[in-house]
């Protein structure tokens, strides 16, 4: 087996033979700025980080193995737990893949699709609010964190009203939804949007244009576009480097082609293009775009596709998902980037042979050893915060 253990021996040799002025520091797994149980092994020379070695797997919950022991419908609650800050988006991607394999993608009622997009965008705002708030606290700004969590709580309450659960919803089902929206949801959602819009301007004043915040994030962790693509970065990471790549537009899934929204990209306004500030700014701008999408969804849900007494969002939910043997890779735009599910189905069974989740955080994090070379330890925290990882998805 020695050939297979060569890399491990090389790694141990590297740690054991550091130079006398260097020091190995463990950041995490219990460290607030690693946003979960991530362990970063740092080889430092004074305050300078010479090398970052990430160690993953502390939250490995065997999604792949689990999903190949039960049918597709039963896996949906587990997808909620991958990126637990954007559960709706995860299950939307998973369900979309199964629906396409069933060939029923075109027959989903428009009202169902609009509700899906509505809850997904609400969840996207909630996820970005966490990213923005915790990024502030990583750098030492406490107030934006409280503000973001306050506003996120309103969104959580709305989604709890719709699904019955605060964070892990199991709301989007193959072929439909768990329930229709509760009566009065559209009106309350409109009030929420009206409440939320001025809060975003307040956030801009306290954080986005804050001189201290800019000094800590501009020109730090500059990620050139070609490096970002080569490392498989997606979502705000890739757009922060100036590439206009949003799967909602590229693939045009669900009802996104019918909706109007822009794709914000990093412009290098405060420093170089692709720095931490750009990635942060892309997220703030995406929240504004999500609000635009929500407003359009609400308008359609109260006019063309409004609630009717006989509408049943579970009408098309299949009792058994019977699939021909095939394989399919579905991708969708999560708040963190490209979320993919690769399915391999087998003959005469509704249990898949293989389900592989491609988490955006996993790929975005893999660029950290490249970005974290020869930076200050304090800047490494700024870089890690700007990547916006969720360990539930890195480790799956």
């Amino acid at each position, binding site marked *: 087996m020695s050939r297979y253990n060569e*890399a491990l021996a090389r790694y141990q040799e590297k740690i054991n033979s550091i130079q006398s002025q260097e020091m190995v520091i463990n950041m995490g797994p219990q460290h607030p700025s690693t946003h979960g149980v991530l362990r970063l092994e740092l080889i430092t020379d004074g305050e300078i980080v010479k090398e970052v070695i990430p160690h993953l797997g502390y939250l490995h919950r065997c999604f*792949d193995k689990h999903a190949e022991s039960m049918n597709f419908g039963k896996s949906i609650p587990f997808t909620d737990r991958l990126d637990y800050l954007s559960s709706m988006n995860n299950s939307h991607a998973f369900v979309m893949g199964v629906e396409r394999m069933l060939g029923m993608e075109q027959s989903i009622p428009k009202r169902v699709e609009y509700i899906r997009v509505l809850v997904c965008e609400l969840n996207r705002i909630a996820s970005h609010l966490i990213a923005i708030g915790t990024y502030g606290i990583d750098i030492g700004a406490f107030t934006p964190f409280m503000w973001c969590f306050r506003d996120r709580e309103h969104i959580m309450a709305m989604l709890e009203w719709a699904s019955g659960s605060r964070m892990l919803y199991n709301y989007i089902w193959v072929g439909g939804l768990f329930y229709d929206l509760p009566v009065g949801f559209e009106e309350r959602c409109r009030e929420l949007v009206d409440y939320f819009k001025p809060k975003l301007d307040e956030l801009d004043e306290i954080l986005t244009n804050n001189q201290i915040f800019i000094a800590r994030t501009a020109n730090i962790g500059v990620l050139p576009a070609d490096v970002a693509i*080569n490392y498989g970065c997606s979502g705000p990471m890739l757009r922060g480097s100036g590439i206009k790549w949003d799967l909602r537009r590229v693939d045009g899934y669900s009802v996104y082609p019918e909706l109007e929204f822009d794709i914000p990209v990093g412009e290098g306004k405060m420093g170089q293009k692709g720095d931490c500030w750009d990635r942060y700014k892309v997220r703030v701008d995406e929240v504004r775009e999500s609000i635009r999408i929500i407003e359009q969804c609400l308008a359609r849900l109260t006019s063309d596709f409004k609630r009717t007494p006989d509408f049943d969002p579970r009408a098309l939910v299949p009792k058994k998902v019977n699939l021909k043997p095939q394989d399919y*890779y579905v*991708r969708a735009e999560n708040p963190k980037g*490209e979320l993919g599910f*690769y399915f*391999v189905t087998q003959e005469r069974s509704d249990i898949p042979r293989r389900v*592989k989740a*491609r988490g955006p955080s996993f790929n975005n994090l893999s660029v950290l050893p490249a970005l974290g070379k020869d930076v200050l330890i304090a800047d490494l925290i700024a870089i890690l915060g700007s990547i916006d990882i969720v360990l539930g998805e890195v480790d799956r």
Partner: protein
Amino acid sequence: MSEQIAHLRTVLLEQVHADAVQDVQLAGLQPALYIHPDYLLAVCLFLRNDPAFYVDFLSDIAAVDYFPESYFEVVYQLASIPHQSQLTLKVRLEHDRSTDLLPELPSVSSVWRTAEWHEREAYDLMGVFFTDHPDLRRILMPDDWEGFPLRKDYQDPEIYHGIPVKD
């Protein structure tokens, strides 16, 4: 989609090697090309560098165990950002399922750096060895774990570091 795959096949056979493409899967939602493991690296380099394809984004690498049949498949999900297209490549590896001698194929981490972690995951969970990989350690499981948990014939260990693992 299937015409593009057929076209790509002829291009690869002409430009890379006459044996580079073993088979082509036209049925299903996503047609795919079966690449010979020996020419995988050359095919990937060609696809990334050729302006007509410019496949610059590797989305995912998934290893699939076809138990009880004696082969594995490694599936590469690729995308091209300028052309806004997707492509699936597959490599089939015949193997007798032993854990001492792993199935092998060349690493594509020199073409797309993101493959580094995906290949570590495939090695960790499915036991597929990637030659010329810069750092092929386990990634999700502990370094001293034995066996490859995503294989269909995997048996849970009774005990790990004195901790009973089975319930």
